[in-house]
């Protein structure tokens, strides 16, 4: 056994040395490549990173984001004649892991831009690292308002922020649903609590009685919570990330014969999973199956990956911005580098995009004129666009 121990430790040491040597001489190759295996020609070759929760509790969202990023790269490579490939990084929505993954991406000199990370906490954790490396990163789902106060000079996002979505949704509820009392439940994640903080003052100012509850994402039984829904409570606001939980909540409401209507946000947009008739879902991303110009993309995504929600398309948009920036750099005769790609992204001016609106970034990295989309679910479970422009 002693011999085995010595051999084992020696071998691991060799592996470490080999790994260090191999990665010092050349950066790690991509694990997902949409280009051919031929040698790099004079064509535009670049690597981009993609950070998302590929495993963990919200892996479904992360996988959807990854799929849409890959789709964007495939379509853009064909359209622009580039050879862009994606290097994945799994953050599990965990900021500490995001830091390690970001170190991995920033130390890979070939990577010129990153799509992601998904969570606002992760952006806060990796922002300084990205800034130090001069690496542009575009998030398709980090909506915390504090992220674009100038702290992270290389951060961009293609979605609107909580400080806009929250109050707009709250105003809609007050004006159109006119509840006397409502229950708002957060799922103990930053995304959720941010929205609750934004919405509650508006409700209380309108004289509505607010019952603020909180359950973790791991809870699957809501019957006790639903029993607390009074006869006066006509709206339950669920700014959750897990659609299946909301579906269960809705079922418990029906089982206990409560008449409250569910108002949910982005995470609940999931036509297969959340389908309680009469509910509202406010989303930062559109339903691209309803946008005529996106028919090709939607069909491709559907056939390759199955059903999708609203988390994928914004990452498609982000990746597309990156791809276009790289392509424009190449057309100007330069080799893509972090600096020139960052500059090109800042100049982005797309008149139309998969999100159904133009994409332009303000000086802080926010999307100019970001829209929100409100959907109402019919009794048959279909999502119908209710009011397209909730935000300016």
């Amino acid at each position: 056994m002693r011999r085995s121990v010595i051999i084992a430790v020696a071998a691991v040491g060799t592996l470490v040395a080999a790994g260090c040597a191999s990665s010092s001489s050349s950066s790690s190759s991509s694990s997902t490549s949409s280009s051919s295996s031929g040698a790099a020609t004079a064509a535009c070759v670049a690597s981009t990173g993609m950070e998302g929760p590929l495993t963990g509790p919200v892996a479904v969202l992360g996988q959807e984001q990854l799929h849409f990023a890959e789709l964007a790269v495939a379509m853009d490579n064909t359209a622009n004649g580039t050879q862009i490939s994606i290097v994945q990084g799994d953050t599990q929505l965990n900021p500490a892991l995001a830091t390690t993954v970001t170190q991995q991406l920033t130390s890979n000199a070939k990577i010129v831009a990153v799509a992601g990370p998904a969570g606002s906490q992760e952006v806060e954790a990796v922002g300084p690292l990205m800034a130090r490396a001069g690496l542009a990163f575009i998030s398709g789902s980090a909506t915390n308002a504090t992220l674009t106060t100038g702290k992270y000079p290389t951060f961009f996002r293609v979605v609107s922020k909580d400080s806009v979505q929250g109050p707009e949704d709250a105003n809609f509820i007050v004006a159109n649903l006119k509840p006397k009392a409502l229950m708002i439940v957060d799922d103990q994640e930053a995304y959720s609590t941010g929205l609750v903080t934004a919405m509650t003052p508006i409700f209380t100012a309108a004289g509505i009685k607010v019952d603020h509850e909180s359950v973790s994402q791991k809870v699957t039984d809501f019957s006790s919570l639903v029993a607390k829904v009074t006869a006066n409570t006509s709206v339950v606001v669920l700014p959750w990330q897990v659609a299946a939980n909301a579906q269960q909540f809705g079922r418990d409401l029906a089982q206990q014969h409560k008449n409250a209507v569910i108002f949910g946000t982005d995470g609940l947009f999931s036509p297969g999973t959340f389908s309680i008739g009469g509910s509202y879902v406010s989303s930062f991303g559109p339903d691209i199956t309803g946008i005529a110009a996106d028919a090709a993309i939607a069909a491709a995504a559907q056939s390759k990956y199955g059903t999708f929600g609203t988390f994928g398309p914004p990452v498609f948009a982000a990746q597309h911005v990156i791809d276009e920036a790289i392509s424009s750099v190449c057309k100007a005769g330069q080799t893509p580098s972090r600096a020139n790609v960052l500059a090109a992204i800042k100049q982005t001016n797309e008149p139309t995009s998969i999100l159904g609106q133009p994409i332009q970034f303000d000086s802080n990295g926010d999307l100019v004129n970001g829209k929100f989309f409100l959907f109402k679910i019919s009794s048959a479970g279909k999502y119908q666009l209710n009011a397209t422009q909730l935000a300016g």
Partner: protein
Amino acid sequence: MTFFFQELVNGITTGALYALVALGFSMVYGVLKLLNFAHGDLYMVGAYIGFFVIRWFGGPTALTIPVWLLLVIMFVLAGGLVGGMGVAIERFAYRPLRNAPRIAPLITAIGISFFLENSALLLFGAQYRIYNTPDFISFSSGIRIGSVTIDAVQIMVLLLGLALMVGLRLLVSRTRLGKQMRAVAVDREAAEMLGINVNFTIAATFFIGSALAGVAGVMAGLLFNQVYSLIGFTAGLKAFTASVIGGIGSIPGAMLGGLLIGIAESFITGYISSTYTNLIVFGLLIVVMLLRPSGLLGQAQLQKV
């Protein structure tokens, strides 16, 4: 008042579920003095098995067999397969460690728990699997007393849970196997010397305990509809809490503990706030442990010199 009763009904239902899981856990501890951390994950496997059985027979909307038959198959299959898994785990992971330092089987159990959770994630994927129970057991088939609703699934869970608990009690106190289990729990070496086949008894205990967990998993799927790889962790925690509060190693204690936890959670959510439910339950546990370490119904353990 209806609110009180509604919360009570919810609490008793979930409490019965916790009690079933705690029972298996307590049994195994009684016989092997081992905290089986992997117990909650067996519950998760049972829930997945139930889901796949539903899919096999046409999914929640187009069932090819009557509902009662589906339920029977789900319970029997989940119980049997998960019981078998439990026996296999005991045979190859815990038996070699029977004479090892106490820490070894505990760490192995943690390892098995983690292994099972991630294997389920690998094999079954990250997305939640939904039972869609209301599609084949509709809400209207329940009873309504005033404005307190108890739907059919809850009634079934309660009755089945009660039947299983009573059955287990009878098994342990009246049958020969039960007597052997109790003997092994008290003193393994002496039991061996008396001619009891200790390995078989322990395996049988694991089978029954794990089968209970599997059945509880199916029930959880029917009640809560959602199955994913981490539900076992939470259920396992609740099972520990219930067993410890009731007195670990004691079967009536596990039942009592489970019900108490279920009702406590329900009332804390209802009357205080859902934010602090877990914290308060943990706090309760700590208090019980400090005041009465052997649990409410357990006996103070004698330390033999």
